[in-house]
């Protein structure tokens, strides 16, 4: 073997040999199964916040203000001499999650209200204008959601799948990649949405926090996905399901 060019030429010539036509029976088998195969619809409903009536909008805003005030008072109380409250630090997070495979399994969050989700999204830094513009409507689906996520085992090629549910309805699915003991990337099945997530496992509790709305292999996720994933992941910790 002399040069890389020779090798490339040999490989290309060798690859050119082989079948190029899909047998009709395979195509027929596919088309026979299509009517019995439901399509997976898009994940979260993209209704406009603007479709809320004035009372509902006022209610959501008021709840967010009340929650923000409660959080602010709690934080202020701590900073002016209250008892020291243990807080999570990155170092603790890493030591609390000694093995990436700990995340494999099903995790469920308690029921969260629309107001809690909205407060979470705002606490993450999204403005009302951004939330409106995103078209996120998950909060409007009856107001209450019970999210769960199933993180799958890696397959032989190392690909790990995940599925997120609201009650029993599948919200979205894709693949996740464990970066280290505290960070993972999850991407939708078409790879267009990928976010970087910090995860902390303490006992049977899983806490998720989106630390980057994109991944090195993809740009920032669309605003709708950023808002919706923030609401799902960050509104409440998850508990491991047996």
């Amino acid at each position: 073997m002399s040069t890389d060019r020779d090798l490339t030429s040999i490989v290309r010539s060798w690859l050119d040999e082989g079948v190029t036509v899909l047998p009709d029976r395979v195509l027929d088998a596919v088309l026979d199964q299509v009517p019995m195969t439901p399509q997976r619809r898009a994940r979260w409903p993209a209704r406009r916040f603007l479709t809320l009536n004035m009372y509902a909008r006022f209610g959501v805003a008021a709840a967010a203000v009340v929650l923000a005030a409660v959080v602010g008072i709690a934080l202020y109380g701590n900073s002016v001499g209250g008892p020291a409250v243990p807080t999570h630090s990155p170092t603790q997070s890493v030591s609390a999650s000694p093995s990436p495979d700990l995340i494999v399994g099903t995790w469920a969050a308690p029921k969260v209200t629309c107001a809690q989700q909205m407060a979470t999204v705002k606490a993450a830094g999204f403005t009302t204008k951004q939330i409106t513009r995103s078209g996120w409507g998950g909060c409007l689906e009856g107001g209450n959601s019970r999210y769960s996520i199933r993180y799958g085992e890696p397959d032989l090629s190392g690909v790990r799948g995940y599925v997120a549910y609201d009650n029993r309805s599948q919200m979205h699915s894709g693949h996740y990649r464990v970066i280290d003991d505290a960070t993972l990337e999850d991407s939708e099945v078409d790879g267009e949405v990928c976010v970087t997530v910090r995860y902390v496992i303490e006992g049977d509790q899983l806490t998720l926090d989106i630390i980057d709305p994109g991944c090195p292999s993809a740009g920032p996720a669309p605003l709708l996905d950023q808002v919706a994933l923030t609401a799902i992941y960050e509104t409440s910790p998850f508990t491991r399901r047996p």
Partner: protein
Amino acid sequence: MDTDLVVRAQSGDEGAFASLAVAAGDRLHSVAHRILRDIDLAEDATQQALLNIWRDLPQLRDPARFDAWSYRLLVRACYGEASRSRRSSPNLRLLPADEPMAADGMSSVVDRDQLDRGFRRLSIDHRAVVVLHHYLDMPLEGVAESLGIPLGTVRSRLHYAMRGLRAALDADARPVKREAAQ
């Protein structure tokens, strides 16, 4: 690919999907066969990939990216078929060939056989990169997009795959004594 067909299939139009499947079937099958090197496995992988395409089509945001996206689902189906095959196949070990590589090298039966052996030693990840780049003439950026992996990973996989193929050709070119499998 006709994006109008993709959009109609996304909304559940089975006729539009049938047209898509007819149009995409041959190219997907060609790629599956080259990755898996087995006609039966390739047919199964193509069938599964087409069904997965139908199932997940509503989640494809940009219909213009249908081709790249369909390759990703095909490669995933190839993983599945390869792993099923490994579970169901007896554990065979290939023996090195006695024949040295022919002097002219390029098109001999020996070369093809050696390449085939070397290729089968590669993982599906590495095979997919080789096939998409060298068979479909897809630029590396396109391979990265199709497989949903960083460009650097594509380069790395291609490098190691080609090195593996070169090693297979070079190693098999040296006369060796046939050994019995353990």
